[in-house]
């Protein structure tokens, strides 16, 4: 199958998942009404009399921004997971390897604990602080790696990220142990959730994520070459240090933003690239965009399951991604392997 066709098919599937996600819920919105509601909201056309106003508001105010938020966050995590697995030449590397989530959690924990609020950040104080702490941790890890190892070897980067993550996590554990009244709030934040995500969140997150992914798309060839090893990449003409730094920085930005807004949701970033490589081959010009689409669709689906399966109770979406994802991953992985043997 032609690559273009594969990507188009994936995009169509994603659209299908998004439609499902906005239709299903406590109030069922018929798929046929979506176009009418969107036309009315976006272009001010009169709403078809057949469509109830409540449906229109539920779809526009609640479901659509939530679904889009899940889609963009899933895409961001999957894209950065793909890049990290290439840059660090490690199939277990993920967006969180360098300590973004640990840092962001500490930031979020401090905000909850102190109740601090910055006037310029307003309702975004928690995401803002989480973002700064998340990114700060990654750059600290990179900075310490650079001091220890001038060549910035992958093993050193990964080790430093792990050590720093554990250290930052320990600080967070200490703090929460000393102030238990915030424990529950923090735990729920860490589990991740897309509830109460509105257009204002989408408006902040979506453009940033789109720009980052587009930037990454320009470096797919470098990602390909880097999988053959650092020396090979250098001798093929890649400005390795700069490219590596740029790619890791963009990934940190993507993951930092995602975690700051919705908490730590694992698994998507790790498995999306593996699944996509099984189905589409390993070239990053294909794997990166398709991983982003797949991760987005997968996250939207996971969020749909998390809010509907035990409604009105919501399950933590981070648990759902792993609950659906692990068997699915095993299926795709071993099915292909059997055929190869």
């Amino acid at each position, binding site marked *: 199958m032609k690559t273009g066709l594969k990507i188009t098919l994936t995009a169509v599937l994603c659209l299908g998942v998004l439609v499902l996600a906005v239709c299903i819920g406590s109030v069922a919105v018929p798929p046929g009404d979506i176009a009418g509601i969107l036309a009315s909201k976006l272009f001010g056309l009169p709403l078809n009399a057949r469509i109830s106003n409540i449906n229109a508001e539920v779809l526009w105010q609640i479901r659509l921004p939530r679904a889009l938020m899940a889609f963009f966050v899933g895409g961001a995590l999957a894209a950065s997971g793909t890049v990290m697995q290439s840059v660090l030449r490690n199939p277990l590397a993920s967006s969180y390897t360098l300590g973004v989530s640990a840092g962001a959690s500490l930031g979020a924990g401090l905000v909850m604990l102190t109740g601090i609020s910055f006037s310029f950040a307003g309702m975004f104080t928690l995401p803002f602080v989480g973002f700064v702490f998340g990114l700060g941790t990654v750059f600290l890890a990179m900075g310490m790696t650079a001091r220890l190892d001038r060549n910035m070897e992958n093993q050193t980067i990964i080790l430093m990220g792990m050590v720093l993550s554990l250290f930052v996590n320990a600080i967070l554990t200490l703090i929460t142990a000393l102030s238990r009244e915030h424990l529950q709030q923090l735990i729920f934040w860490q589990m991740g959730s897309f509830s109460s995500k509105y257009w204002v969140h989408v408006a902040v997150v979506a453009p940033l994520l789109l720009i980052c992914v587009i930037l990454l798309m*320009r470096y797919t*060839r470098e990602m390909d070459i880097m999988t053959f090893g650092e020396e090979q990449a250098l001798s*093929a003409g890649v400005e390795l240090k700069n490219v590596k730094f740029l790619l890791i920085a963009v990934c940190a930005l993507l993951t930092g933003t995602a975690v700051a807004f919705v908490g730590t949701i694992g698994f998507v970033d790790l498995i999306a690239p593996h699944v996509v490589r099984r189905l589409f081959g390993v070239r990053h010009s294909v794997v990166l965009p398709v991983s982003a689409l797949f991760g987005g669709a997968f996250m939207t689906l996971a969020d749909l399951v998390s809010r509907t399966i035990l409604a009105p109770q919501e399950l933590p979406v981070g648990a759902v991604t792993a609950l659906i994802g692990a068997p699915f991953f095993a299926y795709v992985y071993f099915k292909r392997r059997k055929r190869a043997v």
Partner: protein
Amino acid sequence: MLNVSHVRAGYGSDEILHDVSLQLPMGQSLSIIGPNGCGKTTLLRAIAALIPFEGEITLGGKSVASMKRREIAARIAVMSQMASVYLPYTVYDTVMLGRYQHMKRTFFGRPSENDRRVADLCIEKTGLADIRDRRIDELSGGQLQRVFLAHTLAQEPQIILLDEPTNHLDMKHQVELISYLRDWASDAEHAVIGVFHDINLAMNLTENVLFLKDGNVVGQGLFEDVATPEFLHGLFDMDVVGYMEQSYGRWKTLKEGRKNGQTLQEQI
């Protein structure tokens, strides 16, 4: 002309190469030979500017250290060892990655007409046409080595650097690779520099040799002029030529059969 003058290099505070100089005109090839740990690989890395070094290395009069990676890649290619397959690219994609430094930055990394032409040609020349769409993790060692050769050729360099290129190859593939490289290097604008343990292979590929010991050049020139039995004995601390003669004698008995029913070992 490649000119290496008074180069010192090492890792961290360990200096491995002390004051190495060599000159290599285009159209010639050079083998680098020496005991383990003498700095052969370090010298190759310095020439490709993969590691920092003191002293000066120029190619066509221009300092390698001042070039951008892409400029270096347009002139010098390092043929990779096969140990480094992480993701299963196809043969064609792997060869095409050799075109990296010639390509413009585009969105989906689409190669140009010329890139495709060169990659096709390199695949053709290395006899990979039948397996161009296979995954590289499914290939035999010999096939994989040819894929990396094609990748290196696709880079269209002036100089190819090789580090123990025949390590994982059986004899047929060793001979094939060496004779291919000898052909390539006979072009007046090309040169090959190879690090070898196997002196036989080195003599099959190049006329010239540079002997290293403990990070210093101890001999340089034509094999016939430099590699005397006494010199090799001193370099490797063993009677290299005697050893070779002995195995050659054994080969002869394989060809002629037993003499008076005795093997060579028994005759000695």
